[in-house]
């Protein structure tokens, strides 16, 4: 797509934000152009070409635009600018720095620089003159918010280069030259700390992309314990409105064990984004002791911002993630919500008069979604370091129906499914992740099983599967009780039901607003799961079904108090002791200890 002379064109047709341009030279698919409208320059992307006409989608409102307006093509696709200084920034979907924009209202055609060009960074070289390098190799590093930020050989360079010169340790701006590379024909390339990369093209400078094998701790029990996500894994959270998608996403982004958090607020409520803007700078980062915002980048393209930029926003977020991954960092990428992204695709496909697929979504929706999810993953870099992007997207299924195209197609692409259930939300059982329907495919990976055995003990997986069985059998018992009535079933059914309730209340439900309960470290999760399974393994003897409910309600209350107490504190131990005494009241015998190590 590189051209010497820039192609120009004139506007000949306008249908909402789809503009037809008569062009005088070559144009590329997805090429960026600017339409001149009075004093404003409106950014647009080519999405279709027929003969001498390019169809472009404008990233802004086209109000007042006239045929005959001049168009300049840029010769490249939509690119992001990568370099130090992107953390704790608030970007829009096209990576404009929202804080740099003037005024309360967004102005059309206002594009701002994502980086700070004046700020100086303390550059330390990592390689020496004469070293052979390829794209993505670390030339040196600067420190950003106490995080190493590697300055890499530009991803766009092809082939092997020799370092002709490299800057000494010192203070440099992002635009200062920090190295000169030479290809094998003796051509020199000057390198600074900034590079550009097209968002729709994955950055592939890593050596290998193995299957994910390491659990990513989120502190959310019903994820970590029951359906764990892995470093470099993919997951999605579908749920009707009001089921707590956003609270869950915020909880994960606050607690997960990641170096960098990127949040793409894609077509969602502006006030929710404001909550992140206002809260994250206040929140202490449990991992670094600093503020959470310092390792967070927010891409905000709220529902009232231009639709085409909404589509771009998820790609922008992913590309930033890939950039950090290439530096050997663990990235957590959250997108809320991918349904809005799919709707943006639908609106455009509709204007292009393409033949529609199910629910009027474009026919290739499935391919687009899979392709996007496949950009996440765990990688080995060329220098044997590792990096990862863990991606979790939310889906807002129309009418809460999980059979709609976006949910269905995401299900094919993502490996973890955290379905939020309306019933659970209605009965205030939060997080409302349905324990029966949800799954993590990673649990079947021998790689993960092996690492779980190593880190969580040899019986961990067994215990997890057992927990699922108890939940399932509890659900069956519940259905029987509902059909036959409380006294129409053996007392044992009540026990089965209440043992599942015990797991539900103590392990699955978690208070995201409680300081202690909000995040549970793995060690504590393990301890509590074994405790609960022990109870589930115990045979109790009851005279009637009322006794079962009463007894278990007391157990649940006791265990919940433990959840609310500091782990292993005096308070915790007191509750635990009282619990043991309670158990003795009805226990026939303790069959066996849950298989702890």
């Amino acid at each position, binding site marked *: 797509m590189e051209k010497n002379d820039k192609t120009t064109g004139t506007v*000949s*047709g*306008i*249908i909402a934000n789809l503009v*037809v341009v008569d062009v005088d030279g070559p144009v590329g698919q997805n090429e960026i152009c600017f339409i001149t409208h009075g004093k404003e320059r409106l950014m647009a992307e080519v999405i279709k070409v027929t003969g001498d006409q390019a169809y472009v989608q404008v990233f802004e*409102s*086209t*109000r*007042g*635009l*006239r*045929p*005959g307006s001049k168009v300049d093509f840029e010769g490249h696709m939509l690119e992001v600018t990568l370099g130090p200084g992107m953390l704790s920034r*608030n970007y829009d979907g096209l990576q404009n720095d*929202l*804080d740099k*924009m003037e*005024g*309360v*209202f*967004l*102005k*059309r055609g206002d594009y701002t620089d994502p980086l700070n060009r004046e700020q100086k960074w303390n550059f330390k070289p990592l390689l020496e003159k004469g070293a052979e390098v390829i794209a993505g190799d670390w030339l040196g590093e600067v420190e950003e918010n106490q995080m190493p930020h590697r300055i890499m050989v530009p991803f766009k360079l092809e082939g092997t280069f020799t370092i002709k010169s490299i800057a000494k340790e010192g203070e440099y701006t992002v635009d200062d030259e920090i190295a000169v590379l030479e290809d094998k024909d003796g051509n020199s390339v000057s390198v600074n700390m900034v590079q550009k990369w097209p968002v729709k093209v994955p950055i592939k400078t890593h050596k290998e992309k193995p299957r994910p094998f390491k659990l990513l701790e989120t502190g959310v029990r019903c994820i970590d314990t029951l359906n764990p996500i892995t470093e470099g894994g993919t997951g999605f959270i579908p749920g*009707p*409105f*009001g089921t707590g998608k956003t609270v869950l996403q915020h909880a994960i982004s606050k607690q997960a064990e990641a170096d960098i958090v990127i949040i793409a607020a894609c*077509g969602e*409520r*502006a*006030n929710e*984004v*404001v*909550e992140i*803007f*206002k809260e994250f700078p206040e929140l202490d980062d449990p991992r670094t002791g600093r503020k959470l915002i310092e390792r967070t980048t927010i891409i*905000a393209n*709220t*529902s*009232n*911002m231009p*639709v085409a930029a909404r589509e771009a926003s998820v790609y922008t977020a992913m590309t930033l993630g890939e950039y950090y991954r290439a530096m050997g960092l663990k990235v957590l990428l959250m997108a809320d919500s991918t349904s*809005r992204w799919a*709707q*943006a695709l*639908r*609106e455009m496909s*509709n204007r292009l008069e393409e033949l*529609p697929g199910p*629910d*009027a*979504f474009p026919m290739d929706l499935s391919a687009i979604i899979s392709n996007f999810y496949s950009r996440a993953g765990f990688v080995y870099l060329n220098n044997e370091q590792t990096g990862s992007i863990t991606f979790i997207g939310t889906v*807002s299924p*129309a*009418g*809460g*129906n999980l059979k709609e195209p976006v949910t269905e197609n995401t299900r094919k692409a993502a490996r973890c499914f955290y379905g939020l259930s309306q019933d659970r939300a*209605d009965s205030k059982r939060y997080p409302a992740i349905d324990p029966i329907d949800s799954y993590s495919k990673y649990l079947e990976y021998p790689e993960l099983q092996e690492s779980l055995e190593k880190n969580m003990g040899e019986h961990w997986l067994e215990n997890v599967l057992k927990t699922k069985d108890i939940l399932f059998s509890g659900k069956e018992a519940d259905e029987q009780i509902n059909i036959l009535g409380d006294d129409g079933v053996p007392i044992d059914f009540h026990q089965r039901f209440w043992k599942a309730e015990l797991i539900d209340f103590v392990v699955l439900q978690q208070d995201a607003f409680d300081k202690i309960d909000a995040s549970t470290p793995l060690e504590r999760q393990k301890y509590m799961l074994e405790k609960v399974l022990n109870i589930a393994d115990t045979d109790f003897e009851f005279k009637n079904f009322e006794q079962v409910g009463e007894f278990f309600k007391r157990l649940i209350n006791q265990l919940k108090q433990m959840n609310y107490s500091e782990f292993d504190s005096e308070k915790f131990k007191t509750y635990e002791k009282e619990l043991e005494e309670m158990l003795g009241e009805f226990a026939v015998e303790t069959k066996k200890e849950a298989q702890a190590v």
Partner: protein
Amino acid sequence: MSSQAFQKVYTKLTNITKATVSLTAKDVGYDEMAVVHGRMAQVVKIVGEQVVLQIFSGTEGIPTNAEVTFLGNPPQLKVSDELSGRFFNAYGHPIDGGPEIEGEIREIGGPSVNPVRREQPSHLIATGIAGIDLNNSLVSGQKIPFFADSDQPYNQVMANVALRAKADKIILGGMGLSNDDYLFFKQVFDNAGALDRIVSFVNTTEDPPVERLLVPDMALTAAEYFAVDKNESVLVLLTDMTLFADALSIVSNRMDQIPSKDSMPGSLYSDLARIYEKAVQFPSGGSITIVAVTTLSGGDITHAIPDNTGYITEGQLFLRRDTDIGKVIVDPFRSLSRLKQLVIGEQTREDHPQVMNAAVRLYADAANARTKLENGFDLTDYDERTLDFAKAYSEKLLAIDVNVDTDTMLDIGWELFGKHFSKAEVGLKKEMVDKYWKE
């Protein structure tokens, strides 16, 4: 809108459909307004020199030699303090017999607020209705619809909310309002002596449906004038957004677009979000709060209109007729205000969150007891008491005719707890019980 001098008049239409006309014209901007045969129209498509105009009131009777003048601008509204107390149609022309107003011309449907410039909503809006203030508190800068069946008195409740909320300005956007409802609003506002702080943009059922599409933008442009230029707190009432969405689907259908769910256009979410997201708390102190009505068909909230709305708005309010007390109540189960956490217990008394949750929980117990009763099971003493509680709770707090301040609501709550339950059954924090419990 009158045509100005030097405007070119076109007289040759090349194409006429049910909703649109096409002609060859030059130098026309997208979204621009035009007058065709004396009717208002807007540019919806430009292909080369072919311009497609959507005629808001339909094309019946338009001849191919109809006069077409382009106005050179997108839909606009003149804004000034003269707006107060006036009634306008969807084009911003007075319909109350008064004079045209003077003011600054603003384009409607203007740009969005930069999200980093927004303030977090934080001011409680008291309505006196306990079903709202106690259980689902409204906050300035919030957007929330009533999900109601068409036979429910949503317009009355909304008028009450509007009059009691201490907003500086109330802007009514009426879409497909029946003439009776229009007169109802006019009368209620007049009787309350509040007319001077109310601006109304009304499209009644007598007007062409497509005109409705302009109403929310008109109302919100006026709202932005008062909230941004005058730093006022503005409450915008939009009724009924279902009829607005229906108009969208009519247009999309006539433009040969492929419908998505429930024959709605694929862009429904963006179209609705564009309107609702105008609700904002400005840093300068002004705010726009939107209370809307979305009528449901048969209570179905999975239909595309309420479904998309639910994903956009910050909660929803459900009305329900409680047959036990013969009154309409605000349903405590299905209603939700997502922003209430920002104010309850902070701007209201400390016991607010606790009382709210306990009352709803006990009300849920009553619902279980009722199911038991219906299935022919015996009720325990506790069940009986929950049922008594539920009735009193409905009557004294949930009913929409309640009008008390929040402290009184909380006191009533404690009174009901004390009357029907023991302290252990209510299960509240001990320090709250010690302080507020009423025997």
